[in-house]
């Protein structure tokens, strides 16, 4: 009962991460469903006292990798895009709205391997070490992907705020 309850308590994190990773509500729901089923089936393998959230993210990533291999499901503009757009539109400050839109667009354009690292660390608060083990890559690779991604996102957001210098001829 105890491990299972801990698993249920992590479901909101799995949902948030799956949505922001796949950028597709249906695909995210499927992924969380598969992850839940697989994790429940392997719950006895989970070591009590270790990080349940990191373990679930690892299970999810393995499934996600398999999905990508099996089909080339493309993220299509879905409810999620609309949901994010509505949320951005509700922000009062125009500069902030622009920055959020630019950030979301830049996130969608990041190579997925960089997006994963940004989301696990920046949104889900995973440590560098946990992120490395979730993704099955060395910590050094986590750090270099993160550095590249953040700089790219920063340029995308700040670039839009600069005055337009291009001349119209």
């Amino acid at each position, binding site marked *: 009962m105890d491990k299972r*309850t801990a698993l*249920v*308590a992590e*479901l909101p994190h799995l949902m948030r991460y799956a949505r922001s990773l796949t950028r597709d509500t249906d695909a995210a729901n499927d992924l969380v469903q598969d992850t839940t089923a697989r994790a429940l089936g392997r719950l006895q393998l989970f070591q009590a006292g270790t990080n349940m959230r990191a373990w679930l993210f690892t299970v999810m990533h393995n499934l996600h990798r398999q999905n990508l291999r099996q089909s080339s499901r493309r993220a299509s503009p879905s409810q999620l895009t609309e949901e994010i757009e509505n949320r951005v539109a509700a922000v009062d400050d125009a500069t902030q709205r622009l920055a959020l839109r630019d950030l979301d667009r830049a996130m969608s354009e990041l190579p997925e391997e960089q997006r994963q690292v*940004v989301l696990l660390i920046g949104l889900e608060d995973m440590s560098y070490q946990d992120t490395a083990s979730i993704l099955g890559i060395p910590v050094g690779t986590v750090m270099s992907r993160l550095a590249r991604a953040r700089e790219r996102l920063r340029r995308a957001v700040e670039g839009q705020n600069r005055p337009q210098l291009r001349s119209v001829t």
Partner: protein
Amino acid sequence: MTEPEQLSDTDLNAYVDGELDTQELAEIELWLADHPQDAARVHAYKLQRLQLHLLYDLPKDTPLPAGVRQALDNSGVRRWLPGWRQIAAALMLVAVGGAGGFWSSDVVTQSQRTPGSQFVNRAINAYAVYAYDSSRPVEIGVNDETDYVGWLSDRLGQQIRTPDLSPAGFALIGGRLVNDQGEPAALIMYENDSGGRVTLYVRRGTGNLDTAFRTIDQKHKNAIYWSNGALDYALAGEMKENELKIIRKTISQALEARAST
């Protein structure tokens, strides 16, 4: 000693993500004070972290997808009601009402079933249920118009205070009423910059605890509990024991400072 030529991207990011030890932290802060361009990048990266939450946090009361509910049902649990809040409520009943709870087996093996161990166990369960709830960790937020400290105090039948934990880097986010074996208890929640949370579980003094500070170590989750006679306290958090002790000291100082004014 020569100053490095430039700050590496890795150090700069590790600073933003709280991955540095105290000495590295101090070095980088010195560096940033003299290098506004790097400081601007730090600011931009911290802002990115915040904006990711604005963009991607789940909307309140997002229902659990039908397929996920089914996966849970298929493996033999009761049907869960939709909505995180109901799930949290259901968990709370299981955790607090049931004889066990999440990590009870660990606690019981470490210390026999004393009133203190049972109390701290319930406090850790409450932490586990609510501190991870991203949509509604507290019933009444700190910005709520209601005088929630007064409200909680009324329910407890004893005036409680919310100590200022900003010296330890934690800001108050609010509180909720929880069930402590049929008696009301208050769960006060605090959060730091990186979203780490600690909870202070408070109930009317039962006379079962003494004033000594006792620590329970459950690998990732730690708790310290004590009593001042009028109130029983349990501080819980997912952090190292010495970090939690620092917060506990901050609480004692804050409560003493207010008591003497």
